[in-house]
């Protein structure tokens, strides 16, 4: 039995959905994309072209919900299904909103560039806790027009895992789909076995921007999975109450699903988000706050009641360094996300309210993720009796059970053995090991991973085709040569 956390009873879920339907009528949803408004109008929604506010009736949404796939998979480079969106499957990927990286030597939050993203990809590639890669940070050494697709380009070159990504414009989403199609062997094959999922964000409160709605439409038509990342901020861009924020989240997701399914019925889409409470004293968005996790757990429950695949942002911290705060906030965030049965939990590696990525944090977070995954496996029954059979020859001695053969046979199934990130040494052993704290051990582990990493063997023809494709786009953006990856990331 997979242990589960529920914050909402059935009656409350019904009320949330009812009020979300009411919000779609009043105040309605602002849809800033003309094509999306056209689709909604055609389906019978009341569109005010002046204010761009659309009143979306319940029947349109109900119909859309009837057509959304209940589950789908993401595939790795080899075409193996690796990430299951649907049910209570739980996966983790690194957070992908970073604009800076933590430099472990100086503790500076440095503006991220190509070499930084490559380092992050290598670390995430080597850790089994991450079921997918993400396009984790923006690389500021390439022109802005390329920022989104260049991240995807790097991940494709350095990873075989499924990818959580996202486009920044309505034009680049097409180009990024093209890039994936190169490796899939055409757009049809990509639709059949999607390697990547694209985040698509509404703007709180209750707005689908031109870009957000445009992405939904393009992804739906390409049959490439879309992940709605709705971000109500309780008290600023959403009602101050957690339940009010959850209701607004539902309205934003439901309207997104309507647009998406009207563009192409049956295309895969995920009920996701990155909501947060609003910190009134500092004006911040604390992603490590427990209330943020409670909003996430609640909206996931709403999504599940509708039979939808789910996503959220948890496991991040608001701390600026890898300290005890980072441990508390990230550990609890992963735990709540996992117990909520959220299919994809993004946020690992992130510091400073989702602004800064850290490979060192990725390796520490991997330990929390292992703990959360172990908890999800629950209590096991590997023996016929639970206990009585163990007491043969036991003679009331403290170490009696150490001598049993079954102890050596079963302990690795019962316990997950952590890496050296987790110190379980005696104080003497720990001192002999150099009295390292968790951050210092993480730095060592990142160095080890980077040293051991070897680039995945990819089809050279496809690599060349991808490179040529991206180089063309780079030249159009005014960049004559792409950063030399061999120099930035020597083999």
């Amino acid at each position, binding site marked *: 039995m997979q242990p589960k956390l529920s914050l*909402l009873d059935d009656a409350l879920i019904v009320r949330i959905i009812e009020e979300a339907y009411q919000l779609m009528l009043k105040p309605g949803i602002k849809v800033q994309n003309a094509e999306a408004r056209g689709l909604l109008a055609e389906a019978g929604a009341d569109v005010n072209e002046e204010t761009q506010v659309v009143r979306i009736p319940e029947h349109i949404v109900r119909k859309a919900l009837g057509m959304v796939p209940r589950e789908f998979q993401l595939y790795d480079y080899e075409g193996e299904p690796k990430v299951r969106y649907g049910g209570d499957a739980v996966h983790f990927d690194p957070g992908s909103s970073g604009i800076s990286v933590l430099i472990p030597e100086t503790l500076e939050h440095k503006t991220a560039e190509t070499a930084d993203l490559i380092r992050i990809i290598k670390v995430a590639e080597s850790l089994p806790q991450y079921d997918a890669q993400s396009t984790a940070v923006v690389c500021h050494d390439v022109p802005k027009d390329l920022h989104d697709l260049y991240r995807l380009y790097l991940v494709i070159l350095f990873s075989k895992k499924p990818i959580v990504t996202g486009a920044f414009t309505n034009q680049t989403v097409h180009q990024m789909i093209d890039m994936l199609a190169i490796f899939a062997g055409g757009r049809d094959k990509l639709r059949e076995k999607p390697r990547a999922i694209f985040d698509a964000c509404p703007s709180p409160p209750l707005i689908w921007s031109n870009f957000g709605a445009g992405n939904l439409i393009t992804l739906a038509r390409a049959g490439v999975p879309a992940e709605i990342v709705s971000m109500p901020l309780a008290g600023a861009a959403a009602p101050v109450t957690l339940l009010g924020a959850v209701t*607004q989240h539902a309205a934003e997701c439901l309207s997104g699903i309507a647009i998406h399914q009207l563009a192409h019925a049956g295309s895969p889409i995920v009920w996701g988000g990155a909501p947060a409470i609003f910190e009134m004293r*500092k004006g911040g968005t604390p992603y490590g706050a427990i209330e943020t996790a409670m909003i996430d757990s609640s909206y996931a429950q709403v999504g599940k009641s509708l039979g939808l695949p789910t996503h959220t942002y948890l496991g991040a911290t608001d701390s600026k360094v890898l*300290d005890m*705060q980072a441990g508390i906030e990230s550990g609890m965030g992963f*735990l709540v996300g996992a117990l909520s049965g959220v299919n994809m939990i993004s946020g690992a590696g992130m510091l400073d309210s989702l602004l800064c990525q850290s490979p060192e944090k990725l390796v520490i977070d991997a330990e929390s993720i292992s703990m959360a995954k172990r908890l999800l496996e629950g209590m096991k029954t590997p023996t016929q009796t639970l206990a009585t059979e163990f007491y043969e020859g036991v003679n009331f001695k*403290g170490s009696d059970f150490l001598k049993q053969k079954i102890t050596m046979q079963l302990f690795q199934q019962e316990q997950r*053995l952590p890496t050296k990130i987790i110190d379980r*040494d005696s104080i003497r052993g720990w001192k002999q090991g150099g009295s390292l704290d968790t951050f210092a051990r993480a730095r060592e582990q990142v160095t080890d991973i980077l040293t051991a990493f070897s680039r995945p063997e990819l089809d050279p023809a496809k690599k060349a085709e991808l490179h040529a494709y991206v180089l063309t786009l780079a030249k159009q953006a005014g960049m004559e040569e792409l950063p030399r990856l061999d120099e930035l990331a020597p083999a």
Partner: protein
Amino acid sequence: MRPKLTLLSDEIIARILAEAYELLLKPGIKVQNEEARELLMREDVVIDPETHVAQIPASLVQRALESVPREFYLYDYDGNPTVHYGGDSVHFDPGSSGIAMLNPDTLEHETTETEHLIRLLKVAEQLPQYDAQSTAVICHDVPKDVQDSYRLYLALLYSKKPIVTGAFTNKTVQEMIDMLVVFAGSAEASRQKPRAIFDVCPAPPLIWSNFGAGNLIALARAGIPAEIVSVPLSGAAAPVTMLGTVTQHTAECFAGIVIHQLAKPGSPIVWGGAAAIFDMRKGATPMGAVETAMLDCSYAQVAKTLNMPTHTYLGATDSKLVDAQAGLESGISAMVGALSGINMISGSGMLDFLACHSAEKLVLDAEGIAMAKRMIGGVKQHTDTLATGFYDNKINFKGGDFLKQKITMQLFREEQHLPSSVIDRDSTRAWKAAGSLDAFDRAKLRVKELLASYSRPELDPDQVNRLHSYMLDLAKKAGLEELPRLEDYELA
């Protein structure tokens, strides 16, 4: 709706109980206390005269379970009930097994003395997240014979909160009960409104030592709450499987409750423990492991089916420092404990497998506890409509629309726990401007603030003097002519 974590199906719980009853018969329970054996034999329990192994029948356990109180309170100095043992109430107290304390400046684990315990008491006293004090560390500057009673003496002098404590011998448990009576006014009053609860430990596997069983009997007769702290170690002193460990835990608690209730039916006792897995590589007992938390969550579920008050050891870390590992282990396990609805969760402040305490960790753990308590507070319904009422005419699809609403300022403090300064939610710029402090640095500052702002509780001077002379008498018998000087008190 209160969120809850459960790991066991009803069927598994039934099997655990059934097999625990079997263990009480075979291999049986080794009872090393003569009086306890006599109590059992009076009920026709078969006891091997040589090995002292008792075969305790299920009927005796069931009778004992019937006479156990389902709930009770601990009281503060002023006589207010502030800790509720029973149901799904959740409380936290600092861990109490410390023999060392982290020196925040040198990072050494110093052998603890009087000043260390006083520092911990002062910090815990001011943090509302700790519902009770604990006799957190041993003071090595007093003789061994008085180390348990001396800890209680200090807690009584420096705190008004309820106290989780424990005696180290069958003699000192009587002395510590006497000390509580001094403050309560009479034996009857200390029974009516107990200030403290005593941890009592069986020895795994399936042993009630002379000292453990003796404490159970003394506490039962005094009517002072006892807290069973069963410590099965999966793979060493208990079966390697987690369910096997939970079953042994059940059998040890059953046997303890029988002895306790035979000594005095109706006395309060708690189903508790400090179970752990055993780390085969290091020979260690990782208290921060999630498997350890799973053992605790499971045995608490067993207890709840029997309607027993519950206790556990969670919120500790195996790290030697107040670092990221300390945060993730303590945070995850405190949350598991809270979601399991455990009445008293001990372990905050502890590093290094429960050996070392840290005042800095106490203040950071308080934030993890606040988060766990907020979580079990659940989502709240403050308004008639969940959402629609918020979208008045001023809401115009702008990101900051809701900031202007009066209700936002009225409700945000009820919805959100506002963390103390040890949690950083600043911008990077502001964080740098404030000195780029990490959580440990901030905790050090907060501890200094708390120590500066502490004022000792106003206690009845007559009681204080009587307690002091009682303690001094014990110390003299143990060969210590004078008790360590206490800065905050002038005691003769």
